């Protein structure tokens, strides 16, 4: 092929690639714009602090917001400790045997199991089996199981990215295995683990289907007071509103979505910032 043609080919495809990327970006833009347009009429402080109501002009997201915060608040520490612990075990202490490679494979595939299946699991185990009912704790536990693989995988990757050399350095100074992990490996892996946590939390905030499965789909007009109280979360509230025919409700949904998106985007930005800050260092 002669050079001119090769050059032209190069240019043409560059254009096509940019085009594709622009489409993706455009979709995001359209989505945001659409939601902002829908949301603006309803957005107010009162919207955040009110209970849902059959009167769209008075309805708000207060209990859903609190429910979401509770679920996240319960889930995060549990998931963090179990997830990081599992990751440390797999990366640092597990021997090469069938059980451990099965655990490894298992975690990877769990990450790909549809969330609704976790919902079924939560429904059977926590709601029915443990008789927690459609309560906060059922929701938080279900979410914990759902995000665990994400956290474990992220933490494993963060731990694995710590160079072998650093472990050897500590061991060669006479550190025990645990000292090596705790003092030389984990400090370097923390940013990566945190990034994974943030992504997991933002995933959990947006998840709808599993909570629907465990029965959080109720019109809740009060705040949960104990772990076993029933609750709702933001996405379910939106689902509820979307399902109604009146446009007012759709605007309510859009307003809620906008708030949710703002929270998620700021979480994501934090994660990206963390990653960029520590990427070079590791």
């Amino acid at each position: 092929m002669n050079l001119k043609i090769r050059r032209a080919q190069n240019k043409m495809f560059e254009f096509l690639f940019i085009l594709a990327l622009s489409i993706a970006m455009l979709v995001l833009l359209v989505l945001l714009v659409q939601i902002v347009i829908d949301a603006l009429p309803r957005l107010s402080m009162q919207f955040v602090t009110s209970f849902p109501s059959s009167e769209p002009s008075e309805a708000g997201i207060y209990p859903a917001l609190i429910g979401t915060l509770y679920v996240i608040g319960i889930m995060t520490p549990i998931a963090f400790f179990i997830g990081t612990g599992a990751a440390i075990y797999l990366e640092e202490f597990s021997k090469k045997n069938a059980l451990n490679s099965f655990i490894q494979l298992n975690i990877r595939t769990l990450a790909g199991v549809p969330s609704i299946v976790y919902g079924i699991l939560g429904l059977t185990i926590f709601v029915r089996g443990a008789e927690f009912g459609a309560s906060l704790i059922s929701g938080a536990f279900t979410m914990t199981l759902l995000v665990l693989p994400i956290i474990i995988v992220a933490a494993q990757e963060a731990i694995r990215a710590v160079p072998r050399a650093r472990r050897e350095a500590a061991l060669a100074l006479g550190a025990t295995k645990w000292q090596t992990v705790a003092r030389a490996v984990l400090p370097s892996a923390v940013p990566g683990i945190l990034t994974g946590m943030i992504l997991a939390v933002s995933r959990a905030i947006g998840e709808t289907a599993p909570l629907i499965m465990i029965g959080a789909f109720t019109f809740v007009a009060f705040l949960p007071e104990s772990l076993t109280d029933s609750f709702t979360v933001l996405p379910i509230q939106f689902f509820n509103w979307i399902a109604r025919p009146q446009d007012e409700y759709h605007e309510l949904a859009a307003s809620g979505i906008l708030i949710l998106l703002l929270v998620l985007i700021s979480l994501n930005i934090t994660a990206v910032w963390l990653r960029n800050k520590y990427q070079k260092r590791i």
Partner: protein
Amino acid sequence: MEKAIRIDGLNVYYETFHALKNIQIEALPARAITALIGPSGCGKSTFLRTINRMNDLVPGSRVDGKIIINGVDIYDQQVDVEALRKKIGMVFQQPNPFPKSIYDNIAFGPRLHGVTKKSELDEIVESSLRQAALWDEVKDKLKKMAYDISGGQQQRLCIARAIAVNPEILLMDEATSALDPISTIKIEELAQELKSKYTIIMVTHNMHQAARASDHTGFFLNGELVEFATTEQLFSNPGDERTESYITGRFG
């Protein structure tokens, strides 16, 4: 010569691969620099890492025979591996400071072993850095990240870190091969100074470095220790033909 290291019938296997074959060294001299040379894969690193039992960490590796340091066989059941490693510092091919401040890098080892008093740590940090000929270059930035200094300085930092736990032996596995020639010379000179206090064993794939910087040299080939002699002897009149063809570059 005080307490040399004695190696007695040392064999190392990786699974079924026989990586070191019946290594025998009457006396690997203390307070001197011993260089280990040989073609890639001949077992130099393996040998070095058996001395501080870092090879214990390699799954499937197996050691048999004796390494006697201070009259104790370090592969004895009774031996505490961590205490052993504390006594035997190690410096690696790539400088590998922890992502901490220069100060904390040096203090890492002492802290592990229970030193907590600030004044004591300060003292250790200063004296280690001085010994590693790095104090003057970093004394004003002890709180800075260890990555913010050059590669050669990082390697000296790693030496200081090893020194900080007061070892008797220093192992260096191609410690200069990632460095530029000038940093390399600095590290070699540092080793010359340190040998009055430490027994130094260095693996190098650079024969000229072995010739330049060591007092004794061991030549490994296919897991065997072909020859162990003074550096002068080995490089001017090797006893074994294989050594001769290797050092004169006629090997392959």
